[in-house]
């Protein structure tokens, strides 16, 4: 019963959080919405790594678990930075008169592909650290 209640509270919080994130992007253009999401992604990375370090200092993470975290975090960091670069490239050329619609569409597609890749890759780190925290 307690577990079900806890789950319900977590799901309610999830809905609130999603609304907060959606609110960040309301009325903004495409690049601004994506930049805001990337700012949140960076905050999530920092928080998860600080949490991992804290668990490590408490002796709650083994060497193999630490190695797995480092592996997932490196993948997350690389995916995040690639998405940031792609968005910055898009913003740089989007208002230039010499940029053709095809070039702009290609750059936007690159941002979207890397953003989806980031979402998938970040889930591995975030999910794994959450699992470790549940076990402590």
């Amino acid at each position, binding site marked *: 019963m307690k577990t079900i209640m806890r789950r319900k509270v977590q799901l309610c919080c999830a809905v609130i959080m999603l609304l*907060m*994130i959606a609110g960040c992007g309301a009325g903004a253009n495409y690049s*601004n919405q994506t*930049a805001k999401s990337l700012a949140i992604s960076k905050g999530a990375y920092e928080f998860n790594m600080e949490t991992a370090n804290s668990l490590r200092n408490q002796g709650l993470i083994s060497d193999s678990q630490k190695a797995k975290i480092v592996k997932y975090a490196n993948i997350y960091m690389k995916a995040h930075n690639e998405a940031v670069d792609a968005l910055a490239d898009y913003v740089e050329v989007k208002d230039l008169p010499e940029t053709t619609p095809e070039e702009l569409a290609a750059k936007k597609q690159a941002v979207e592909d890397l953003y989806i890749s980031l979402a998938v890759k*970040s889930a591995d780190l975030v999910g794994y650290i959450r699992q470790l925290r549940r076990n402590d």
Partner: protein
Amino acid sequence: MYISTIDALLALVELALLRGPRFVQQIMDAKDKKEWTADEIRALKIYKTPEEYFDK
């Protein structure tokens, strides 16, 4: 992958609840921003490697 995604979502919620004011402030700062320049976007890159977190 399904479980992992649910975990990630719940972790995001916990992130806001546990990290508290600092994280919420980051979101609010981003929300208030009108137009992001390419340089400001590049400043969102992650520079601190996972190994550096464990070096502390």
